[in-house]
């Protein structure tokens, strides 16, 4: 049986019937989105690794009792959020600001990981990504979270998960876009010019 073709709900049923591979498929299916989401909140790769691990262990322990198979993704992300919030509480942190890359003196050479020569296009592309991620990092925590959740969910799913009206989320999302635009126009006007062409 090819697990990759199965829906989440089918994997949960298999897991409940004792198929450990079904759980492993769920981990492989969600690990990247979860890790990116947690990393976006913690800004620390080590913490993100630890918390991702804690999360999936928690999912494993509770999955057999979980009955709303169709909302599994929402459940996993909600658990992830709770785990991160607990982590912040334990460490007395509300929000860890992103490293201040945008305001540092910037050179394209800095973004080449090992200093080895790379094609200029790759370096420029990395620079743009860096600028965008830096701009996103300057948003409020709620706004950042929404931007990252949007990678994995529809607005309706996020609204259901956070129990908020979809209109509120759309307003927040649009506000975040405007902020990103403003930040980019100040920190990297050349990036801003590109998307406006």
């Amino acid at each position, binding site marked *: 049986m090819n697990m990759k073709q199965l829906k989440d709900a089918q994997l949960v049923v298999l897991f409940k019937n004792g198929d450990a591979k079904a759980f492993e498929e769920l981990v492989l299916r969600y690990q990247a989105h979860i890790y990116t989401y947690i990393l976006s909140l913690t800004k620390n790769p080590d913490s993100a690794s630890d918390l991702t691990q804690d999360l999936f*262990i928690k999912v494993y322990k509770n999955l057999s009792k979980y009955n709303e198979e169709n909302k599994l993704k929402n459940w996993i992300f909600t658990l992830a959020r709770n785990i991160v919030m607990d982590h912040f509480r334990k460490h007395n942190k509300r929000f860890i600001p992103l490293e201040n890359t945008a305001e540092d003196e910037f050179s394209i050479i800095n973004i080449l990981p090992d200093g080895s020569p790379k094609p200029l296009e790759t370096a420029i592309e990395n620079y743009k990504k860096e600028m*965008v991620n830096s701009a996103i990092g300057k948003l409020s925590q709620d706004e950042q979270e929404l931007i990252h959740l949007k990678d994995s969910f529809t*607005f309706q799913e996020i609204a259901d998960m956070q129990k908020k009206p979809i209109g509120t989320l759309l307003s927040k999302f649009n506000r975040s876009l405007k902020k990103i635009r403003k930040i980019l126009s100040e920190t990297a006007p050349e990036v801003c010019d590109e998307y406006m062409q």
Partner: protein
Amino acid sequence: MNICNKLPLFFYNEMSKEDGEKFRQHLKDCKNCQCSFAMLDFLQNKQEVQSAPLNVIQDIFNKTTRRRFFHAYVKTWKIGFAVAASLFVGFFVMFYSDEPQIPDTYSYDISPISYDDIAQIDMTISEIEYTGNII
């Protein structure tokens, strides 16, 4: 809701076909939405989903599905044998033990006693009190 606010729904294709068509018309004339659309398009290509490090995934499996519990090290028949032996010894001790049974303190003999018996007991007690001798 302000129609411009719905741009993200249009961009991510989360509108009904009918609403999508209406929005497309709006987009042709609205500079603000055109700008936001371009921004979203740009953002989508620049954001990356990052995979967790391989050792993290391996550790998750090692602590969940591939975790080796104590019983995984001992063959099942050995555990079965040990359980059966314990039960046998337990029953043997319970049924063939010489230890006296502890009486139930809450049950006592309430068989009837006659007045003659009571009189006899009274007389015996009086005699003990009078002579100081236990008969």
